[in-house]
């Protein structure tokens, strides 16, 4: 009986990672069909497994759908190109929100010849423990992602947490209030955030909300009483009632800069909030699909269109970008290997390849470098396997995401473009 709040928190903070793995739309349970549409791309497929929650009472089903589409389009594209000289197969295993199913997925990955967990290692440690495989290009939200020596995360919610202070600084403020649901996980996040903020000369207070809070009016009133210069949010599913309560107190993002992670503000949340969400800063490590000047986004939208998926960038979220970028990033890394190594790639060689890949820069995602953890200078983060310090800020504008900064180091103030 895993914890409801912990589950929700975990699900939300790693949603990018989870969705990044959802590259095969028609195969929710473990399967191993080759995804190559190029008859000339022969040879034993490179097998990976994504463990993700694909069924059950999903919080944001639309995110899953768009991520599936984007991942599928990307996989078809790289296989069509046969960039590695052999097809890539990604088995997506649905843990159904059940720790035992996650363990089963892990065992299946271990037994079916997968050389790594890819994109998402799932919400439960059982999956990663049972798989006993490296994790590559994962979302950086699980204990495995952040601590296992064979884990190479492409993003991390902790980087976004750090980026909160950079956003505060960019907005010209020197203090902020971090409002967070009260759970063991989020307390770690807030503590980290406070450590980083201190280093940047920003006073970051915390206000924890009991996880079973139903009425946010007293919370909003407390926030109003404290008159914060800026407001950071780490919430779960109740973001809409929370914003309604803030609005009732007369607090809006136009007056008080509000920042949170983009994964907490899915398109359906923006739709429900309407004007109330306008101006909210969202931190992300993937460019929004509305950023049509971005060459990576342009390529993503083209591939989506080519393979018959919805390709209106204004209607998609950065979850699409995350899912689409992963197979391409994998190719970028592995293409650096000699063909003979690619032909004989196994888990150990993959780990080696990751560690030696150096800095990978793609226009649609934050650059990363698996050579060494990204935050050796911040004690509370130094031990975590986070490989990028960069994030970007997007702003909500009439129900869509508008990029307002470039990817930049989260430990320094962002340069906002508006």
């Amino acid at each position, binding site marked *: *009986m*895993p*914890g*409801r*709040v*912990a589950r929700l928190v975990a699900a939300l903070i790693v949603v990018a990672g989870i969705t990044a793995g959802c590259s095969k739309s028609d195969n*929710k*349970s473990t399967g191993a069909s080759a995804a190559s549409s190029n008859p000339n791309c022969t040879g034993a497929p490179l097998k990976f497994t994504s463990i993700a929650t694909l*069924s*059950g*009472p*999903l*919080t*944001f*089903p639309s995110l899953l759908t768009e991520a599936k589409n984007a991942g599928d389009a990307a996989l078809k594209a790289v296989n069509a190109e046969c960039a590695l000289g052999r097809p890539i197969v990604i088995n997506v295993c649905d843990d*159904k929100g*059940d*720790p*035992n*199913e996650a*363990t*089963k997925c*892990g*065992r299946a990955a271990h037994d079916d010849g997968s050389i790594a967990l890819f994109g998402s290692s799932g919400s439960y*440690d*059982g999956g990663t*423990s049972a798989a006993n495989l490296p994790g590559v290009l994962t979302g950086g939200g699980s*204990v495995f992602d952040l*601590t296992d020596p064979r884990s190479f995360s492409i993003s991390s919610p902790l980087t976004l947490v750090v980026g909160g202070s950079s956003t505060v600084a960019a907005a010209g403020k020197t203090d902020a209030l971090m409002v967070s649901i*009260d*759970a*063991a*996980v989020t*307390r*770690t*996040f807030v*503590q980290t955030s406070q450590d980083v903020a201190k280093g940047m000369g920003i006073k970051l*207070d*915390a206000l*924890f909300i*009991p996880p*079973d809070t*139903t*009425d946010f*009016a*007293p*919370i909003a*009133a*407390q926030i109003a009483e404290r008159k914060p210069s800026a407001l950071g949010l780490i919430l779960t*599913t*109740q*973001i*809409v*009632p929370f914003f*309604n309560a803030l609005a*009732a*107190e*007369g607090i809006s993002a136009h007056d008080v800069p509000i920042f949170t992670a983009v994964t907490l503000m899915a398109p*359906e949340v923006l739709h*429900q909030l309407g004007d109330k969400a306008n101006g909210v800063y969202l931190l992300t490590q993937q460019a929004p699909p509305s950023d049509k000047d971005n060459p990576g986004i342009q390529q993503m939208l083209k591939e989506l269109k080519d393979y018959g998926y919805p390709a209106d960038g204004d209607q998609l979220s950065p979850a699409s970008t995350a899912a689409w970028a992963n197979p391409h990033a994998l190719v970028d890394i592995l293409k650096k290997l000699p063909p003979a190594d690619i032909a004989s790639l196994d888990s150990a060689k993959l780990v080696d390849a990751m560690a030696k890949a150096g800095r990978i820069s793609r226009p649609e995602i934050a650059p990363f470098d698996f050579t060494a953890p990204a935050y050796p200078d911040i004690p509370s983060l130094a031990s975590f396997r986070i490989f990028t310090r960069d994030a970007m800020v997007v702003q909500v504008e009439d129900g869509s995401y508008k990029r307002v900064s470039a990817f930049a180091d989260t430990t320094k103030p962002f340069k906002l473009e508006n």
Partner: protein
Amino acid sequence: MVIATEFLSQTTLRFVLLGMATGALTALVALSIVIVYRVSGVLNFAAAALGAVGAFICYSLRDDHGWPTPLALGAGLLVGVALGIFTYVLMAALRQTSLLARLIATLALLTAAQSAMLVIWSNQVSAPSSLLPDDSITIAGDIRITQDRLILIGIVLVLAVALRFVYSGTLFGLATSAVAENRRVAAIARWAPSRIEFVNYAIAGLLSALAAILLAPIVGLNAAILSITILPALAAALVGRFSSFALTVIAALGIGIIQSELSLYQPDLADFFSVSTASLTGLTEAVPLIIILVVTVFSGRARPTRGEMASRLPLPGSGQVARIPLAIGLVAAAVLIVAVPSYADALIVTFGLGIIIASVVVVSGYAGQLSLCQYALAGFGAWAAAKTANSFDAPFLVAIVVGVLVATVIGVLVALPAVRTRGVTLAIVTLALSLVFSAIVFQNASLTGGFSGIKVRSPEIFGFDIDSFEHPQRYAAVMLLALAAVSFLVANIRRGASGRRMIAVRSNERAAAGLGISVIGVKLFAFAVGAGIAALGGILLTFRQTNVQFGGFDVFSSILLVQYAVIGGLGWISGVVLGASAAPGAISTRITNDLFPNLDNVAAWIAIFSAVGVVQLLRRAPDGVASLWAEFGRRVPVLARRRAVVAAAAISESDESPLTARELEVRGVSVSFGGVKAVDDVSFNVTPGEVVGLIGPNGAGKTTLLDVISGFTRQQSGRVLLDGKDVSTWSPERRARSGIVRSWQGVELFEELTVRDNLLVADDQMSTPRYLRDLVWPGRSTLSSYAESVVDDLGLRAVLDERPTTLSHGMIKLVGIARTIVSNPSIVLLDEPAAGLDRDESRELTSVIRHFATRHGVAVVIIEHDMALILNTCDRIVALDFGRVIADGTPREVQTDELVIRAYLGEPIVDPTTPTPTLSAVEVDAS
């Protein structure tokens, strides 16, 4: 300074108002709970969840299908009413079952409704636009609040007044009270109890739906969120004693205000205590609950009052180990572990939960303490073990031992509320404790390792690696062995004297105390053992991971655990595996996933089908599936039992009397209830071997006097002396252990125990080591030679293995007397022993009492309306009227005492021309 004060008061007032608004949300649900409880005694855990269905319908019709608001609102409320009626139909079908069974049925409804909503409307939270105006306004200077909050507060207050009026000022309210009090009597008075209940459930359903419809725009339209409002609502209803609408609303508002103000002043409190604000976060949730806990516990009573009966619980098993089925089960499980490796993980969960459910069997099934915090105790044990393993690099087994011991100690603390509360109140108190554990420990990052959890080593036993991911089958085998060991331990408890005492306490606390059983001791023992067992299960489940986390030990899981226990059989250790199988992640989930690999929402569907299954089960086998197995097993003759009977019969010839002769003296005892003197300066004494009759008309104070002597009522003045020693301040248990033992007007046998066990409860020589010994070696349950002689004297041998419910009234009376006599008394207090006996039985009883007093030198005090029995049995009679002794003498003296005759017949005493009547001619009602 003035400005500061004004600001403070404005701010405080503002948060009071906001807190009231939050409380108003809770109050709506609480009122619905109170309505159902008032009429049926059922605690409806599903109230909020069923209301949520109405809210989903309302907003779905309005926002997705374009219905006009009034129509959509009407439809939503109608659905609420329909679900209220559905609940009624369900409860009516379960009317013959225990109250606990009906409570579990509401839990099943909660689970089914929540899961169905998840399947249909997903887990997403939407916030539909409010039906009430929700613009912010400013009142009383600078207090900003939205209009809907004020309206909500108003609605709740109006509702409380309206409900108060309806239920205390109308014929319908009167009828509801009548039905709640006694359905049969209400029916005789031409009320239609079913119709009255039907209407009440419909009103409750309407209220629940209204609550959810009004709540959804504020808290979000989401099954889980709307369902969770049940927790503070229960707390408020508890304060209102499930009967007072006004108190319930006040409590709900009060809880809201306290939480609101605490959250406001949390930073100041943190400063005051020099701790971080974050470390006090759990306080806003915990403090109101702790206040309620304290108030409830202190306003409770150490033991039920006269006439206060415990609600019936499902029958417990016998604790007999059926060797062949057990062997088959163990072999089947072992084969499953070995032959189907993919089932190992699910079996680990099943066995682990089975162990935790075994703790429910001990605490609730045997001891009758309805605890909803066993899962939290499991988590606490796991936390202690993980801390030990992490901090001291302790081996797995050492961590287990420490975790179990720590949880056992905590279990004793948790038991303290159970000393003064019971039944539904205890359920809510333990639920609150569960929430407190969660808020203060499990969600506290500094205690639980935060993001990564608490790191522990991969488990090993004596160097043997049992890592659950590397070797899931090994881990499953260890879990199976642990479950088997726990099952034997629990079965031992049941078969032993400690188990009999638990069931005696669960059956009737007063009667148990009257036999010298330490009710508190039994409860503490049950909770301690239960906590230890739960901790073992929690540790084994959590140590599968090397990063131990505790988020799963939440409140709803604690509630669901009892549901699983009821499926298997609340008092049956043999049912724990079956109960555990229904849990998410257990074997049923595994099988369902294999059978339907493409099924979405497996857990939700299993929950729905489990809930339906639970309801069916409660109808057909309210004592659990295990009771059906046992029924089957009972058809097979049990050799062991026959042996025990023969062996017992063989030793019943002993003449030796184990009893100690003592003298009882009552000196100047007075008792008042309010302004009424029930006992007024009463003095008398009873010497060893003497039989003293206590007579008097109705309300003379006879039973109160017996209550004083036996310690159940404290006198305002005077003393009770045993062999010259003042025992006035002693508890009933201590007096009983010293030889002052009583029988009861209503007999009050322990109905879940056989006649033999009823006698054994009185006959057992208990000590603290005996409780511990019972865990591993309960020994054979045989009556002492003295008890066997009593059995023969009263002709009970033929019914020794029967339950009291199968006996005639006369036989029940004899068993009650036998139980009293068997408990090694020096002073026996008999309260109407002959009531309901026929003339022959009464005559037999006379000789038994006389023989018993003479042979064993026991002093007997007897209240009886059968004057023939009194006159033939007693050496002396003490007559009471209006609490005073009006006569004290031999039967002959009292028989003709003018005052006594006057007390029975009233003024004028007699016609001087007629002969003076004697008491033998008077039909005395001494009830």
